[in-house]
């Protein structure tokens, strides 16, 4: 898991808060925006990969068994995967913490 960034002293910011390391947006924890969490029912899932294709933030990745799993560090809970899943294996659940 990437470490959280953005928590730093004003003295250590780059000039004009420029970003000098490409791809560092991956370090930003954006999953804490989420109010609804997508969960996959593996009994229904056909491993078709529609969730992986439609996710706008590349949250899904394939595990060893071929299922697509969510990375909740980035997932903002938009619900597109649940809407697009052709077998309704993905459902949205209220975040409780």
């Amino acid at each position, binding site marked *: 898991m990437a470490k959280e960034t*953005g*928590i*730093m*002293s*004003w*003295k250590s*910011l*780059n*000039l*004009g*808060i*420029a*970003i*000098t390391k*490409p791809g560092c947006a991956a370090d*930003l924890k954006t999953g804490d925006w989420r109010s609804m969490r997508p969960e996959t029912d593996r009994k229904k899932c056909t491993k078709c990969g529609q969730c992986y294709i439609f996710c706008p933030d590349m949250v899904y990745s394939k595990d060893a068994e071929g299922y697509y799993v969510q990375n909740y560090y980035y997932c903002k809970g938009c619900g597109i995967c649940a809407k697009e899943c052709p077998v309704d294996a993905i459902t949205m659940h209220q975040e409780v913490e």
Partner: protein
Amino acid sequence: MSKRVGVEVSIAAADAVGLCDVDVVAAYPITPQTHIVEHLSELVAEGHLDAEFVPVESEHSAMSACIGSSAAGARTFTSTCSQGYALMSELCYIASSLRLPIVMAVANRALSAPISIWNDHADLMYARDSGWIQVIGENGQEIVDLTIAAFRIAEDPKVLLPVQVNLDGFTLSHMIEPIMMPDKKEVKKFLPPYKPQLRLDPANPVTLGPVGMPDVYTEARKAQDEALKSSKAEIVKVFNEFGKQFGRKYNLIETYKSEDAETIIVTMGSISQTAMTAVDAMRDKGKKVGVVRIRVFRPFPADEFFAAIKGAKNLVILDRVTSFTGGYISGPVCLEIKSILYDRKHYPKIGNFLAGLGGRDVTDQNFVEMVDKVAASKDGGVPLAYEFINVRE
């Protein structure tokens, strides 16, 4: 060798930019700034200046192009005023936050409505909180010198902030004055080539202007505020070096017969020359009057200003803009000064006068009236907030 020439101040300002070997000029013409931009486009077209002149379609585009070229590491200049500044202001805030050393001449003009092409400080004050360094010239020589110094200040590795050189529209921009123009060799000696710390470079990619989430925005603003704060010392250093090389020494705050003055007139820009004429006449009649002129408005040199006025019993403070406080709070220059005085527990009598709005003349007699009014006032004799000068009832 410097050469003494008789020249319109706008043309001289453009020539000064040329002497600074600027790489990119992106600007849109607007009265009374037009001659500056026109002359720069001539210099480029006729091959006297090896620079890109970008004839943009608006001031918004002008500052956008300037941000791009400065971010690529080019020495960049633009010029505008009034409505043009208002249109580009969105980008001006970005230029300072990205720490881009753009230099901009502002031929100060009133803001609409009513439409006015004439001089006051509405655009200067519109830019007050934009994070730019703001310097204000009194005469043509000063505009040339401040323009050259502005590039050096802006590009100083300890500063890296954009600089506005303010010259009063018409009353300064269109005057023909005797000016010592330095030659290119001298300017080159004073102004080394710009070495950007960070720039857009395909071989070494960076992102400029990213989103700042709530957990970094405060830190970004603090860093920018500190940069402007610490720029004051570097401005003084650059002014000192300029003085050493060219023999014309500039200070953050300029004084005229203020040492023993009971009443001090506080001014900015070309109107200070009228104030000095008035002071000479009043001194002849035995009145102890002086002038303190603010040359650098951002960062505001509070200590230097306080040192210059602390001996005076009365202050006549000019504001050349209506800032619409509803009449309850002073104009912007006076507001700064009252804030400085409160912090130092020092309370002279103050008269804040709104004068020279939208090109209205301010005469030396007006200064005499303002001085007498404040000197004669008891508490409450002068309106607490401000008073319009020369307004017809």
